């Protein structure tokens, strides 16, 4: 599937879609971008009077670009019928954070496949800010598979 196709098949919608653009997807990894809108829902409470993007949201952004988009590419290269059966469950995250991301910032996520075996896709992922500085980095894994079609 091409990049646009993968984006259109992502199983997320607003306000929990954290992918704007994919610039590279191949069997070994994925690269994409996301800009955190100033009016995103979590800034109201994280933190009071001091909006900073929560670490769990940065992790989610890395997972959506780095693991889910890559998983879609690996599993559903041929047909939209396959894409409709695509299922994912996050299985583990281990992330270190280095810099804050403020409302309106655009980030780049680069993900490299560590392995894809027995439906487990494990990636090492990194996020960079617009200045190219490392925001966070870690290992994220998910179970990805195609749901059996009902007979």
């Amino acid at each position, binding site marked *: 599937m091409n990049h646009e196709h993968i984006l259109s098949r992502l199983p997320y919608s607003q306000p929990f879609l954290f992918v704007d653009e994919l610039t590279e997807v191949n069997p070994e990894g994925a690269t994409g971008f996301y800009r955190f809108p100033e009016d995103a829902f979590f800034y109201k409470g994280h933190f009071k009077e001091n909006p900073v993007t929560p670490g769990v949201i940065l992790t989610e952004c890395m997972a959506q670009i780095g693991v889910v988009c890559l998983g879609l590419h690996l599993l559903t290269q041929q047909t939209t019928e396959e894409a409709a059966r695509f299922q994912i469950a996050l*299985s*583990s995250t281990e992330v270190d954070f280095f810099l804050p991301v403020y409302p309106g910032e655009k980030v780049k996520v680069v993900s490299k496949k560590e*392995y894809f*075996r*027995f439906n*487990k896709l494990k990636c090492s992922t990194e996020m960079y800010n617009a200045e190219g500085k490392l925001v966070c980095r870690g290992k994220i*894994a998910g*179970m990805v598979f195609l749901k059996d079609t009902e007979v």
Partner: protein
Amino acid sequence: MQDKEILERLKKIVTPYTQEKSGLEGFNQSTDFIKDLQINSANLVDVVLDVEDEFNIEIDNDSMDGMLKVEDAINIIKSKRAES
């Protein structure tokens, strides 16, 4: 390789993934990876990858599906080693 040696090496492999540590005390042939050790399916994949490295074998999808208990793993390891 004796079953006992495989068992000991397996125990070393599963230890970091085991949530229910008490399940390791009586670790034997009938230990169930999921029920007794509370290893989840995602970590069971890592166990299998570590088993491949440790015993220098390749485990296929069918074998993976049948790996519920320690004795299943031992049988798979022995048959794969015999093949190579």
